[in-house]
């Protein structure tokens, strides 16, 4: 474990010579551990068992960090901290860190405000290892921090945030990262950094203050945070949070415990490839696996996309990534809803209204037609109105007898803006975000799906990329068009007899969904055909291009997969030439050995 920390330490850009660290700890075992860990990271360590000695050393020498056990003989850590602060007189002080087995007891004791950090016992190597990064960063980012500034704005201890101010979680031994204390600042807290580097002791992220989904992007930008459930204390995240505490009853606390236990269990089973991935799509798989539930959308009027998925990530991003994963068979999707999309700003927050088909004004008035049988005049009622009477504007006869003299065969919608009349209104949309107007013709639609892990996706979550690598290489012979099977047979025979190499290129279209959504299936099909035609032209006699169902194929004779892979770019460019849309074509090459 120590070695692991040291190894991590080596990778970090330390200032030459490291830092000077004072350790005041009455347990010689802990003293040794601290010394070992810190010196392996390149720091100089002075250690003391007595409080008074430590204070003297602090007065004499300049330390960068002081780790003080809270219960020292002769002088307590709190007293040391208070004294040193009082005597500072503009001198730069070390970062003061308290070490204690009773973090909660400490919180109630006086003098706490003099510490910058608190580390609970038993000591956590992760925390300790990361701790030294913080003063480093502090100096790099704010070298000019003076004593005066520190006095005016004492660094807020981060520990008080850890014990949750909620009866549900108190005393249950759960560990939380808190928004905004751990994750909300310009810099992440030590605890957050621990969690990012894989400290398994955290159970969830607590949202203690109202926050927008976008502000929580940090959860997805850093590693492994995505695998923590998000507990919303504020009730503002709605369906994006895994648990909305504001809607829970006291009796539900047992459930919460079970949730944490299950999630912790599954997180432990999540492959490290996935836990520490930087790829957003892989994070989605990891999250779906850890939370053990599908990625489902729910309506969220506050969002531009009108939905949130059950995670703190913008729905558009989730959908984009998840759709790509569906292509790879890692997720499967189910239709949820279809939205109209503003053609200008892509928002789906559209106001739907009945409006004039000509000037698009919603100021429509409904007016009944009247039909005077005798003279065949038919027109809007207002033309007949003479005070309380109905008088035919054509023959000036008063209409008295409904159904014998006149009737009302229908209604007319008259636009108060332009006077245009129609028997039915048009339906139009106004974008609530950009105020653009659209109608059914100019609006595109966007389908929203829910996603769930496929067997392959679960396999990927548990076994990492190695699982995927094998899975992906497998060609599905059942999907081959007959034409291809014939051509492959011929190529294989040729190889067996004359050792002529051949390569089968599997042509994939990852952008298919997106292009179909934007330009329609027909446009995509045309582009795909054109791509194949271009490719055919480029290959000439060197290969055969064969159209498949969801994939297409090109069979090249005379060169093996490795040679062909070098040509991928020029082949793609040739195919893509003259195309209006980027098909985002992906090639996979297979040689004879793949068909053994």
């Amino acid at each position, binding site marked *: 474990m120590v070695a692991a920390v040291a190894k991590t330490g080596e990778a970090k850009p330390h200032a030459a010579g490291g830092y000077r660290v004072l350790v005041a700890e009455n347990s010689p075992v802990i003293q040794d551990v601290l010394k070992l860990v810190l010196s392996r990271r390149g720091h100089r360590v002075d250690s003391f068992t007595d409080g008074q000695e430590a204070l003297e050393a602090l007065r004499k020498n300049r330390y960068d960090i002081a780790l003080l056990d809270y219960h020292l003989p002769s002088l307590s850590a709190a007293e040391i901290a208070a004294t040193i602060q009082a005597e500072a007189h503009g001198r730069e002080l070390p970062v003061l860190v308290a070490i204690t087995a009773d973090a909660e007891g400490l919180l109630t004791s006086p003098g706490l405000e003099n510490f910058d950090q608190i580390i609970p016992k038993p000591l956590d190597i992760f925390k300790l290892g990361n701790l030294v990064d913080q003063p480093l960063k502090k100096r790099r980012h704010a070298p000019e921090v003076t004593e005066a500034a520190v006095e005016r704005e004492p660094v807020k201890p981060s520990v008080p945030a850890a014990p949750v101010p909620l009866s549900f979680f108190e005393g249950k031994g759960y560990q939380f990262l808190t928004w905004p204390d751990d994750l909300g600042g310009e810099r992440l807290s030590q605890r957050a950094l621990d969690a990012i580097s894989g400290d398994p002791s955290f159970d969830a992220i607590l949202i203690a203050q109202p926050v927008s989904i976008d502000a929580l992007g940090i959860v997805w930008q850093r590693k492994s945070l995505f695998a923590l459930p998000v507990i919303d204390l504020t009730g503002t995240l709605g369906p994006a949070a895994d648990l909305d505490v504001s809607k829970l009853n006291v009796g539900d606390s047992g459930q919460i415990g079970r949730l944490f236990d299950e999630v912790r269990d599954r997180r432990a089973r999540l492959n490290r490839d996935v836990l520490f991935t930087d790829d957003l799509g892989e994070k989605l798989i990891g999250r779906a696996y850890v939370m053990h539930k599908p990625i489902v959308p729910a309506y969220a009027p506050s969002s531009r996309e009108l939905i949130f998925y059950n995670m703190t990530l913008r729905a558009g991003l989730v959908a984009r990534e998840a759709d790509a994963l569906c292509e790879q068979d890692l997720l499967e999707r189910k239709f949820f809803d279809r939205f109209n999309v503003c053609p200008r700003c892509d928002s789906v927050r559209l106001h739907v209204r009945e409006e004039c*088909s*000509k000037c698009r004004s919603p100021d429509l008035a409904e007016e009944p*037609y009247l*039909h005077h*049988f*005798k*003279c*065949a*005049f*038919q*027109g809007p009622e207002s*033309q007949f109105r003479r005070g309380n009477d109905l008088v035919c504007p*054509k*023959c000036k006869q008063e209409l008295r007898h409904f*159904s*014998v*003299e006149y*009737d*009302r*065969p*229908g209604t*007319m919608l008259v636009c108060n803006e332009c006077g*245009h*009349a*129609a*028997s*039915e209104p*048009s339906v139009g949309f106004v974008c609530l975000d950009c105020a653009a107007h659209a109608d*059914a*013709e100019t609006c595109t639609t966007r389908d929203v799906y829910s996603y769930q892990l496929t067997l392959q996706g679960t396999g990927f979550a548990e076994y990492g990329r190695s699982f995927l690598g094998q899975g992906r290489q497998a060609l599905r012979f059942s999907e081959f068009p007959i034409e291809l099977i014939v051509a492959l047979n011929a190529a294989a025979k040729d190889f067996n007899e004359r050792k002529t190499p051949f390569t089968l290129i599997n042509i994939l279209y990852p952008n298919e969904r997106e292009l179909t959504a934007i330009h329609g299936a027909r446009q995509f099909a045309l582009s795909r055909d054109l791509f194949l035609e271009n490719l055919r032209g480029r290959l000439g006699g060197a290969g055969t291009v064969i159209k498949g169902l969801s994939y297409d194929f090109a069979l090249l004779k005379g060169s093996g997969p490795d040679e062909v892979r070098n040509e991928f770019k020029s082949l793609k460019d040739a195919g893509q030439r003259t195309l209006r849309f980027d098909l985002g074509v992906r090639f996979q090459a297979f040689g004879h050995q793949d068909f053994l």
Partner: protein
Amino acid sequence: MFQLVPESLNFLAAATWRNLFALFVIVVVYDIPRYYLGFIAVALLSIFKSKKPLAHGRGDFVSVVIPGHNEEEAVERCVLSLWEQSRPPDEIVVVSDGSTDRMPDKLRDLQERGLIQEAHCTQLRGGKAAALNLGIGRTKGNIIVVVDCDCTLDRHALRNIIEPFADPGVGAAVGNIMVRNAKASLIATCQAIEYLICISLGKRAADVIDGISCISGAFGAFRRETMERLGGYDAGGSEDLEITFRVREADLKIRFASNAIIYTDVPTTVPVFIRQRFSWDQYTLNYRNRKHGYLLNPLSPRFNFIELLHTLDFLLFSVGGGIGFWFYLVWVLSAYGDFAPVVLIGIQLWILALESCAFLLAGIMTPEVRISSLLPYMPAYSFLYQPFMRSVRSIAYIREWVFHSSYTDRVAPRKVHSARPYL
């Protein structure tokens, strides 16, 4: 039987002029003036009436009104053919008159595609006149063109029908109607011949003497002031014929635009044909002699000599020719006995010759119709269709005269008939 035709020809060759006149009194009195007057008029027209180049109405705003009842299928083709015009309309207003098919949906679709400017759909059928009035009330143009839903237009039809309005005295114009489904059945072919002779040629002749009898509802055009002055169409069927009386009474000229061609489908089966003609003829009699009966009364302040001639022409040739034919038939049968068929066939051959001349002249005047395909049907037209039509007409007049049957036909809804003044 087969001897009859040669026998008839021999009979004609052997008869003296005096005998012939006595025999063919009906031809001499009725048909010769009708056709020959037409011939002469048309000949005069083409010789003396030089074609003045008229303004094409660039400054005009042309509104087209299309009424329809259950015309889901036809309306789109009609609208599209309007947008194919060399002079496209400035607006199209379509009225679905209480349609029970998907015509309202069709109209919404057309409106969304920008192909029609206004669409009105009533839930209750009010008859074509009411639908037209509703549509006309919504137009903005200074020229209002009325087109039937089941029609399609020649490319220059609209340009040509608005041409006459360059003359400020013209209140309305009517287009040239041709049969689109001439090949559908024998009766449709015969109607194609009839349209060619009566409309393409007949109206051309009538135009010369300012005697257009009907601004056909299939394709008519009105100046807005005319429409406003008249208050639109009146209740009842054959509203196009009725409004024609009032246009003329308002002292406005009606022009026949022979080169404004519209194509329509005619009835292809005998029952539908009979129903259509019953309706037309009953309304004609009703309007001419009842609603506008003052035309015959020299003491009426609205009496007009030209209108009297119109009405006399109608009574003499249409009613008289229709009903008189039966008296003539009885007379020939009683006078000639067994020889009657020979006489009748002889007469009909004589008429055939006259009609063929008219037909050929009409064909020459109307190059849009390929007369060569219709010509073989001339005997059928003359020997079968004409007598048949004459019978239908006679029955229609009697029905109307005795039973006022125009008040019970199905062209207009019953509620309208009940409210129409009973004359």
